[in-house]
């Protein structure tokens, strides 16, 4: 494909790129395509889409800027990168909004065509940054992307607007040249996507190749870059986002349990994709039910659980609030149900497209009455698969609702996923009761789990519901002693799950003074910070909670072993609150609630500060 290679590309260990432009500029697509390509050439990667909640804010404005950050490496990486090395900016607003994040001396590739008076003024620039010296600390590459794309597409029957829309492919092509990449993954994608619109295929391919060739024939770059494939464990890989992994987890749980999957759901950012993905798998017998509201999303799922399906509902923060009463019903009726909460910035509507970790206490405690349920959290995009599968297993085995917490960052972010071997997947045994002998709706096994007797089973007709039931027999009961017993049993049943979940795994220096404890999507940032600290000679250990209700059984031992515990969270200290109250041990909080993932550097600074003895207990 390439004519010649005059000089060897400059070998880099890791790169962070951020694509930024108008919400209509196709930056998410550009980022996703570059990620797919990056995964395909074998780098480890981690991504962070960052977009406004407005679908198409007025063009050129600061609040309409959409971005996609991508961190890739020849080594293991865990975060989308704190600060980009390279910024691709499609207009002045995008530049203005992101320039402060770029590393000093970093490279900016700019669509110079968009730096006209109108766009400069929309971005509140009083002078053109391409003409003054405000960008002097960076390597600025000005490319008239709009003009070049238009020229490349001459003769294709498209409107000027359609032509302009392909300029993101020009930018992508240029980046492929710069990083010494093949074009195949994107060309294949274009051909599939626009199979019915040959003129779009031609135009997008031409724009992509024009961008590539532009890099090749001009000498605006002093060199090309290359990042060698990462040394990942052997296996077959694909790139996957958290939401898609979550959907796959439930699909797998349905296959492994033999239960039809029912998803009752109401669209909400950033959780809707789970409903979208699962609605494609009808040939697995999946029933996706787009309900009239969040409440119907969960109550249809409760009905489906009663009828014997693997029942799931998915939502984000405000939707979890709406589902609270029904969650209590699922606790009371002791039915298996999985609720996915893809957390976003709150309270109320908050920051719909931004990640946060502030629903933890709502998930664990947010219901009327004593309503304990199981709460799990996924730590990376691909880990959503494991935890969706695990949530399904526990829900079925313990006849309990399980909340799986993910967040906007891991849901939309992606990373390479080592595909599981089919025979390694856990079995999910299901036992519907069919024997009349000894059957009572609220009789219990050794784990205090009641039987699942589904409608259609002869002779087991029974009634359940939200009113308190007598233990064993399941009749409505207002008896004080029985109520106390049932409240205790429901709590104890949840606690029994502890026996069935893995212990906390301590990573890093087990014998350190300082333990960094986290949960959910901050795993990567904490891990990278801990490793960097250790490379600097600081002794530090890390644990990350996949299970929060109940906590793993060695939690008490682990948290009491360390002199100091640092708990970084994207909230004001919710896990910290739980650790303090449950284990009577103090912790040091690190909280930043910016609607963004935590930065490695921030956690690292905190670790070093604590290790330096300035902020101990």
């Amino acid at each position: 494909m390439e004519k010649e290679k005059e000089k060897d590309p400059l070998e880099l260990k890791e790169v962070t790129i951020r694509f930024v432009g108008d919400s209509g500029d196709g930056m998410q697509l550009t980022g996703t395509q570059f990620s797919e390509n990056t995964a395909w050439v074998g780098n480890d990667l981690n991504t962070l889409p960052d977009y406004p909640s407005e679908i198409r804010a007025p063009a050129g404005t600061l609040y309409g800027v959409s971005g996609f950050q991508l961190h890739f490496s020849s080594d293991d990486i865990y975060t989308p990168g704190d600060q980009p090395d390279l910024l691709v900016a499609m207009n002045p607003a995008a530049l203005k909004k992101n320039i402060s994040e770029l590393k000093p001396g970093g490279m900016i590739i700019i669509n110079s065509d968009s730096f006209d008076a109108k766009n400069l003024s929309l971005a509140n620039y009083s002078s053109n940054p391409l003409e003054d010296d405000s960008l002097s600390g960076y390597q600025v590459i000005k490319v008239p992307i709009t003009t070049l794309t238009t020229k490349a597409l001459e003769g294709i029957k498209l409107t000027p607007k359609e032509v302009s829309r392909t300029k993101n492919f020009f930018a992508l092509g240029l980046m492929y040249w710069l990083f010494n990449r093949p074009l195949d993954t994107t060309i294949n994608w274009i051909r599939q996507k626009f199979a019915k619109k040959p003129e779009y295929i031609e135009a997008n391919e031409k724009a992509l190749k024009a961008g590539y060739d532009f890099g090749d024939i001009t000498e605006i770059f002093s060199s090309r870059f290359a990042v060698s494939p990462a040394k990942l464990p052997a296996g077959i890989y694909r790139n996957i986002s958290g939401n898609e992994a979550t959907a796959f987890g439930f699909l797998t749980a349905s296959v492994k349990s033999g239960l039809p999957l029912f998803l009752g759901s109401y669209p909400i950012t950033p959780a809707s994709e789970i409903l979208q993905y699962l609605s494609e798998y009808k040939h697995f017998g999946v029933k996706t039910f787009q309900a009239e509201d969040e409440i119907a999303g969960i109550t249809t799922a409760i009905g489906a659980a009663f009828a014997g399906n693997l029942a799931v509902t998915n939502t984000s923060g405000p939707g979890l609030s709406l589902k609270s009463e029904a969650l209590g019903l699922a606790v009371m009726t002791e039915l298996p149900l999985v609720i996915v909460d893809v957390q976003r910035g709150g309270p109320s509507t908050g920051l719909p497209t931004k990640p946060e970790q502030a629903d933890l206490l709502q998930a664990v405690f947010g219901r009327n009455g004593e309503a304990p349920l199981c709460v799990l959290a996924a730590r990376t995009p691909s880990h959503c698969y494991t935890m969706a599968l695990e949530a399904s297993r526990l829900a079925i085995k313990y006849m309990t609702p399980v909340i799986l917490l993910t967040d906007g960052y891991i849901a939309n972010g992606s990373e390479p996923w080592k595909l599981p071997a089919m025979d390694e997947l856990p079995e999910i045994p299901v036992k519907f009761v069919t024997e009349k002998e000894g059957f009572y709706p609220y009789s219990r096994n050794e784990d205090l789990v009641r039987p699942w007797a589904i409608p259609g089973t002869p002779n087991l007709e029974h009634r359940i519901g939200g009113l308190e039931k007598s233990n064993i027999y399941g009749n409505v009961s207002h008896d004080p002693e029985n109520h106390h017993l049932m409240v205790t049993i429901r709590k104890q049943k949840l606690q029994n799950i502890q026996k069935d979940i893995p212990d906390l795994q301590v990573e890093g220096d087990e014998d350190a003074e300082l333990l960094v404890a986290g949960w959910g999507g901050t795993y990567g940032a904490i891990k990278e910070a801990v490793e960097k600290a250790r490379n600097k000679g600081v002794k530090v250990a890390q644990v990350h909670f996949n299970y929060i209700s109940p906590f793993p059984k060695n939690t008490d031992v682990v948290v009491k072993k360390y002199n100091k515990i640092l708990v970084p969270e994207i909230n004001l200290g919710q896990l910290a609150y739980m650790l303090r109250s449950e284990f009577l041990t103090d912790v040091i909080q690190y909280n930043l609630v910016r609607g963004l993932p935590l930065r490695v550097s921030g956690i690292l600074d905190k670790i070093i500060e604590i290790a330096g003895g300035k902020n101990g207990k």
Partner: protein
Amino acid sequence: MESNIEVKQLNYTPKDFASDQDVRWCPGCGDYSILAQVQRSFPEIINKPKENIVWVSGIGCSSRFPYYMNTYGFHGIHGRAPAIATGVKVANPNLDVWVATGDGDLLSIGGNHFIHTCRKNVDIKIILFNNRIYGLTKGQYSPTSLKGQVTKTTPYGSVDYPFNPPKLALGAEATFIARSIDRNAKHLQEMIKRAGLHKGTAFLEVFQNCNIFNDGAFDLLTDKETKDDHVIELKHGEPLVFGKNKDKGIRLEGFNPVIVDLTDGHYSINDLWVHDEFDPSPARASIIMSFDEKEGFPTPIGIFRQIIKETCEEGITRQIDEVKKKKGEGDLKKVLYSGNTWEVK
């Protein structure tokens, strides 16, 4: 034909549908009659073993209903019965799913679920126990309480207009809409059977007397002296006739219903509006439902309208079958290993 044979073999009696629980409604409550008529009707319409029946309810006096039926039952939370029932039906379309609900439960807190269940035509039967009052919370006005009605929360009379439940169901495209009265046992049984035999969302409103908080709300429609002049029974293919001596009829003139005297020689029974419950257009059903609000008009009971169209769960099942035919049975490995994969050695 197969199902007919089954019916004979099943041989259920009303007692088979009674659970062992003591019924705990207030003595004299209209709910007793509805329960009795359901239990009496079921042996005639249930064409599969009774373990395939599920009763779902929300919250309110009427929502205790599932506990008294010896079938599968789910006593849900306030307003959500249609959604829970939908989940049951979609999860297992082989089940016969019934909803017992009240005017507050279905039309106030559960209004959204009600209209969307109708719109989607989920094959569930909804019996609305309409007593025009909140009973379980002891006497506040409901969305069907009359304007001016004095209740605990409207000591000076309600300023709200009531819902006309059949109209709401019609607007939401329910495929079977009927009404009956708790004290009219025979008619109520007939309506329960017809609802049960319908495929699709069946909505049956039952006027039910709450003898504690809204006693006598339907006296005009149930008292021997007054009922014939105040109730008109809709029968498919028959003219709209009412009155003690069957001496009054209703004609449709343009969009206007007109009451005519059949004794003064101007009009005969042949001039009257003939009810067609299968009318594809909802217009006439809507006019009949409006009798409620028209001074001097009798209150209609019977089936306003029923039509047949694909149900929600039929659509879901059909689509699953179609996709399976096109793509083959789902292959997990194929799906997980799709897209751009690469091997690390």
